[in-house]
């Protein structure tokens, strides 16, 4: 055993020295490699997890926003349709009212025009009768060659009017 150790060069001072050397290497690696790298990896893991959570949240929020916007759009569409329907109803009602008003106005105008026409006709008829009466009196005076009295003229005019009214 001792001879083997001697052949391999194993003795306590060298063994302790190499143990210390190995411990130094381990300390160096622990201090400047494992610790910062593991911390960095942990930090990166946390950040990735956080990013994933955030991404999920954003996705969820996006989905919610889409649903909400769709709801708003649907509501707006419904309201728009309702408004259009109301506007149509209102427009139809107004159209009906205005039409009725116009019809009434037109009938009124027509009635007034008819009245005016009738009045004019009556006036013209009266003037015509008067003129015809005057012509009859004048013609009669020329044909008979005598001067007609006021009574004759009155009577002729009345007779003419009666005859015209009968026709």
């Amino acid at each position: 055993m001792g001879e083997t150790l001697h052949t391999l060069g194993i003795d306590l001072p060298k063994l302790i020295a190499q143990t210390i050397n190995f411990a130094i290497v381990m300390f160096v690696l622990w201090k400047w490699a494992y610790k910062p790298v593991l911390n960095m990896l942990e930090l990166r893991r946390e950040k990735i997890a956080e990013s994933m959570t955030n991404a999920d949240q954003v996705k969820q929020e996006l989905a919610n926003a889409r649903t909400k916007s769709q709801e708003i759009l649907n509501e707006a569409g419904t309201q728009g349709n309702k408004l259009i329907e109301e506007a149509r109803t209102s427009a139809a009602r107004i159209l009906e009212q205005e039409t009725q008003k116009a019809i009434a106005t037109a009938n009124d105008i027509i009635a007034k025009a008819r009245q005016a026409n009738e009045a004019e006709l009556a006036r013209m008829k009266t003037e015509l009768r008067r003129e015809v009466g005057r012509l009859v009196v004048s013609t009669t005076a020329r044909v008979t060659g005598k001067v007609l009295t006021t009574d004759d003229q009155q009577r002729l005019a009345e007779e003419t009017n009666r005859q015209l009214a009968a026709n």
Partner: protein
Amino acid sequence: MAVNVVIGSMRSLRIIIVCFLLAAVLPVATSALGAGKDGDHASHSVSPDAPTLFHVGPLPVTNSMIYTWVVAAVIFFVIRAGTRKMGEVPSGVQNIVEAAVEGLEELTKGLLEPKVARWVFPLVATFFLFIVVSNLMGLLPGVGSIKWNGNPIFRPPTADANMTVAMAAVFFVMSTWWALKYNGPLGLVKHIFGVKGGMKGLIVIPLSLIFIFIGLIEVISICIRPVALAMRLYGNIYGGESVLTIMLTNSPLGIGALPFYFLELLVAVVQALVFTLLSIAFIGTLCSHSDDESHGAKDHH
């Protein structure tokens, strides 16, 4: 985009191959030239022990200790370059350091319980990084061939039994400590000597005798583990050094060593991985409740 990535990786592969070739050819050339000058093949044999170069007070300083400091310095500068200004988006050396640390952490976590993995990770990661860097730097030109007072100035730390035994001793002490911490003193005894398989009743009495015997074998196995770890690593690296030296000095222009440099590149990584994985596995056998858990699960079902 994909074409650029392929071209980039092919270029990287080419650079790596060239580096490997240089790493393999340069030592061959330098050592062969040295051998030509000396002309004495016997003086080129590698001694099993690391020779003492000088003393600092009562403490002997061997060539492997000097190279251990060089290796430690290289590791220190590389990790400082990688972690001095760490960014959330890694770049340059930070990528290498992060990949190494994260890879080793994943390896440890994959084989051990999370709690145990947290305890064990710094030690096993240091085993791997230190051994792999030592082994690879042991293949650099000048290591074993640059001499002072007839002794090489540099010797790979893993080709010195003191270093491999030191690492194995650290492993043994720490694994025992973790086993006690994990199981408790009584729990550890039960873990080693206890009747396994969830047996109950009178059958336990004869079985306990068998399991005490198995436990004794287990104790011997636990004690042999560090020896096996230390000697496996030392034997492989020292053997590789010896083969390289013999092939360098006994073939024309040392060209016979060329294939062995490629083999040693492989051995350098494989031995580091073997030491690390076995350390993790040995700790795993002492710090696990897999047997109890499986029975618990069975009972539950």
